[in-house]
């Protein structure tokens, strides 16, 4: 059995499934931020290729 220190070194964390969190999936929490993201991305879209700073 792995101890906590070993598990903490893994990049992908151990996640315990908790079905009570399902309720938040469809709730509009952080909706303002989602709206802000949609607004910002409307004209910009995704990067086409890696761009380096000027």
């Amino acid at each position, binding site marked *: 059995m792995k101890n906590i220190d070993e598990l*903490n070194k893994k990049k*992908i964390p151990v996640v*315990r499934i*908790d079905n009570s*969190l399902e309720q938040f999936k469809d709730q509009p929490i952080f*909706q303002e*931020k989602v709206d802000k993201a949609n607004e910002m991305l409307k004209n910009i879209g*995704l*990067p086409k290729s890696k*761009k380096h700073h000027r």
Partner: protein
Amino acid sequence: MKLPRYELKAEKSLMVFEFVSEGPKGEIPKLIKYSETNLKDLYNLAFGDKNLKTGEIDDTIVSNNGDSEKVLATVVSTVYAFCDKHPESWIFATGSTKSRTRLYRMGITKYIDEVGKDFDVYGLRDNEWEEFVKEIEYDAFLVKHK
């Protein structure tokens, strides 16, 4: 990810995570949510404190619980978990205020050497995406697993 981080709980799609911050101000439950956006495969990452009395989530509060590095390491670890479950996804993040966005930038800067091995990380500047560079102010951030 050698820094300590909190134990995570999530629902089965790994779009909503919860952990409990522990510090001088007591135990503060935190919620992280990856929300769908209008762009396919692009998710907005947001997190905030869960008010145990009202059940509401506040992403503007500064909890000052003395564990910001552990909180940040925990949030970063959810990016790995989320992208493992949703490998084609892009993750977008911006702060609720300029100072909060600056905090995100400082957080990404702290992890960029390690995270950059696994993810392409972009910053939004002058309405254009560019590869994330330390010490540059950005309006938002975008991450995609390599």
